[in-house]
């Protein structure tokens, strides 16, 4: 079935993008925290500061926004299906 095949392929491709993007974003968050600590004025061990900051990052909106990698293409496909067939 073409539909199942398309969804499997799209899911695999989007998952690769999602995983790469989330690793990249987390690495960026870590860099940011380390740079903040290196500027000085924080009386906390560097390791602990970064770990604490990353825990905050894990619950942040920024991280959840990466789910848009799945949501936006799906919404686009839904919109196209509606406009072409039912509008």
């Amino acid at each position, binding site marked *: *079935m*073409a*539909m199942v095949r*398309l969804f499997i392929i799209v899911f695999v491709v989007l998952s690769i993008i999602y995983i790469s993007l989330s690793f990249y974003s987390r690495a960026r968050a870590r860099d940011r925290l380390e740079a903040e600590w290196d500027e000085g004025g924080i009386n906390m061990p560097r390791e602990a500061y970064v770990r604490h900051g990353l825990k905050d990052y894990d619950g942040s909106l920024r991280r959840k926004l990466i789910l848009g990698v799945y949501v936006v293409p799906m919404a686009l*496909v839904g919109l*196209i*299906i509606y406009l*072409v*067939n*039912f509008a």
Partner: protein
Amino acid sequence: MRYIGWTFLIAFWVVLAAFLHYTLPQRDIVRVQGTEIIRQDFSGINRIFYAQADSGNDNAVINRDLRLINTTRANGRVMVYRNEDTGFGWPPYFKLDSSNLQAEAQASVSTRAAPEWYLLTHYGWRNEFLTIYPNAIGLKPHPGPDAPKGLPWLNIIILIVLAALFYGIWVRWRRFRQRRIDPTLEEWQDNWEAAGDAVQKKRGRFRRWLNTWK
């Protein structure tokens, strides 16, 4: 060497332009004359220009019925469109309503004496040699044969996004070449020339030595 490069470059852009011209939607002002269904026996050459069989059906059979919409365009020339589901394949129109569109087309039939005009969205090419038809996507009533078709917003957006993408890739490639490839090539060339000079110098010395024997 330079000609080969140019040939590849021109071929690439021509293929890309043809691909976009085939795939992107276009709008024609038409008068629908009628609809029909013919059996189509695809050949290896024109098979690529038709959609796959409907999702539940057998894909191995090489012939099937094809819905056609016969029309006359605003400029007086006839045009025949096919009406096929694209389904979930390429191009990504996700068209699933061929039967409904066929019903709309049948309800839109008008005569030359009392023409009713419609704006027909389609993609694809009509080619008599290959026996291929553009695929109709939608049908909408239109005020008249001379009324404007409106700006193709979708095509404008897609082409701008595509141009931005190509520009981004090109800029990065050029930067990469300037930083990494060009210096290496220059180094090779310098080494090569230095080696050549050294050989020349040696040969000169050898020749001078030979000349002392004269």
